[in-house]
């Protein structure tokens, strides 16, 4: 039994090393709970309590205009409430955000709160791909957003990369730093992950610059390295992602997400909406990266075929809860929960 850790997640820019034992998870989540609106503690069947989100609704996303140049200039500097409040949790049930149609069954009959996640727990081990499958409204995308600190959950403990603290409770600066150094996220919508008014090269370099690399030659070198990994020709680096096809935009996102060699990659419906032939290319690139970098990944998808292709283990989500979990092969061969069975049969 080796005393040395199998995986050391080394970030060359920061020079920090997080050592994770072979049997220790890189990410450990418990009790993740998320709802929009005012919850009430007496709701039937509701184990959670009402109250403010952790950190008073201070997500790293939300409350910011999506596009640069948005007027939003009130002129009154810094007066009145803290910025960052009025992020998603206060919005009281935007069906789009909470995951799509069919949410009425997730609504608390007494207070109208919409539940997205009910006490979800999971662990992610070094080098593995964890699939999360479910329909719209299952909470899987909310889960990904919470893990990436784009949303602040109501409750939950997140331990990352051997660190003892609950990452959800860390300061804004600390969470930004973790995000930048240790996590990469690929969004379903390229607009969410890329800046369309900057070149592809600048997009990919963004996290490298944020991690304090100020050497242009090195930045360019790394950018071109990454373009090669995701199989985008180097000469297209100067173009903006707006001129790229959907599949190429996703590959740019992937390049950006792995630029800093993070230990954890989050993939949220990355091939949804792409043509089948294009999907294959993107999935190939992901497969290659995961294999070569030994990165741990969480792959969220409603498509069991994608899960089957990439995920070692899988969680099945329904209505904000994990209803089944296990090795992907086993779930496919022997689905136990009725819902899982339906999913599997529809695949075959």
């Amino acid at each position, binding site marked *: 039994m080796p005393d040395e850790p199998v995986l050391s997640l080394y970030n060359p820019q920061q020079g920090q090393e997080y050592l994770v034992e072979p049997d220790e998870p890189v990410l450990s989540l418990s009790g993740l709970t998320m709802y929009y609106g005012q919850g009430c503690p007496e709701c039937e069947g509701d184990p959670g309590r009402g109250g403010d989100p952790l950190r008073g609704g201070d997500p790293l996303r939300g409350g*910011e205009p999506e596009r640069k140049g948005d*007027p939003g200039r009130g002129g009154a*500097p810094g007066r009145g409430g803290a910025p960052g409040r009025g992020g998603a949790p206060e919005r009281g049930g935007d069906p789009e955000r909470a995951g799509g149609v069919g949410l009425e069954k997730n609504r608390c009959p007494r207070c109208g709160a919409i539940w997205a996640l009910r006490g979800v727990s999971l662990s992610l081990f070094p080098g593995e791909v964890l699939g999360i499958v479910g329909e719209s409204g299952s909470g899987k995308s909310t889960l990904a957003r919470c893990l990436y600190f784009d949303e602040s959950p109501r409750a939950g403990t997140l331990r990352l990369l051997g660190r003892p603290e609950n990452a959800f409770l860390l300061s804004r600066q600390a969470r*930004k730093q973790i995000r930048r150094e240790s996590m990469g996220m690929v969004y379903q919508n390229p607009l969410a992950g890329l800046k369309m008014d900057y*070149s592809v090269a600048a997009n990919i370099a963004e996290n490298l*610059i944020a991690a304090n690399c*100020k*050497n*242009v030659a090195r930045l360019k070198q790394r950018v071109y390295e990454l373009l090669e990994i995701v199989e985008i020709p180097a000469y297209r680096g100067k173009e903006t992602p707006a001129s790229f096809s959907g599949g190429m935009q996703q590959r740019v996102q992937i390049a950006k997400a792995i630029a800093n060699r993070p230990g954890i990659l989050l993939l949220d419906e990355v091939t949804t909406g792409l043509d089948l032939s294009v999907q294959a290319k993107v999935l190939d690139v992901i497969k290659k990266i995961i294999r070569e970098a030994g990165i741990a990944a969480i792959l969220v998808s409603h498509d069991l075929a994608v899960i089957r292709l990439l995920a070692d283990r899988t969680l099945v989500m329904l209505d904000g809860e994990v209803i089944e979990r296990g090795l992907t092969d086993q779930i496919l061969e022997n689905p136990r929960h009725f819902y899982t069975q339906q999913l599997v049969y529809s695949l075959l």
Partner: protein
Amino acid sequence: MNRDYNFAYLDEGAKKEIRRSILKAVAIPGYQVPFGSRELPIGRGWGTGGLQITLSILLPSDILKVIDQGSDDSVNAVSIKRLIKECAAVGVTTDSEAATVIQTRHRIPEIPLRGDQILVLQVPEPEPLRLVEGSDLVSRRMHGEKDYNLIWLRLFEDLIQFNEITAAAGYPVMVHDRYVASPSPIPRYDVPKLNMAQCLYLFGAGREKKIYAIPPYTKVEALSFDDVPFQVESFAGHACGKCGARDVFLDEIYDERTGEKYYQCSDSGYCEGRRRGAG
């Protein structure tokens, strides 16, 4: 001096507000202190911010110089000078070495300023993040978190597209390793003068209602990548047609009659001083 107005035009309340802001600005170099701006008989965008600072710091014993793009004689400089003389009875000069307070737009005088001098700069847009972030709320947060990624990204983008950084005036600077500030639309040539200077620099933006400052002996660096050093304009091989000065910032002038191009000191007071000295 017109005695129907308070000394230096502004009422004492207005001056106090500005004075309080100036002191906080000096204590937090490069940070934009918001202040309550007053109405002035000069249109917004014509230097009301700089003017309010000047009026709040002036003493009757001061000697004032006002320049616009280096020139003492531009319409704007002359109007401002006239207003100030009317209500503050200060002496005026075109000699930057004789002045105790210099109000300027878009240029810093050639001769380095001394510790007993104050340079007041007019700033149209104080927010260096404005080009990359439209929301005031978000910019304030970025300053608070020292998160200047977007500016760096913009500079990197310039290098990717054009192989050089294109900002000509108002090049963003890092003050005391903490705040990124706009030095106002001074040319790159003048940016090094901000670093470890002997004098106090005060910046006023009237329309945006912000005051910021760079104290003497404060580190001020243009934002630049490690391997792409900051470069200033070069006038190598050229000299001022009027006084012969080299190694100064030169304006390119086209002679309307002959169509010839010639060069002239942008700092008109400096040029005049050289010509007087020469005989």
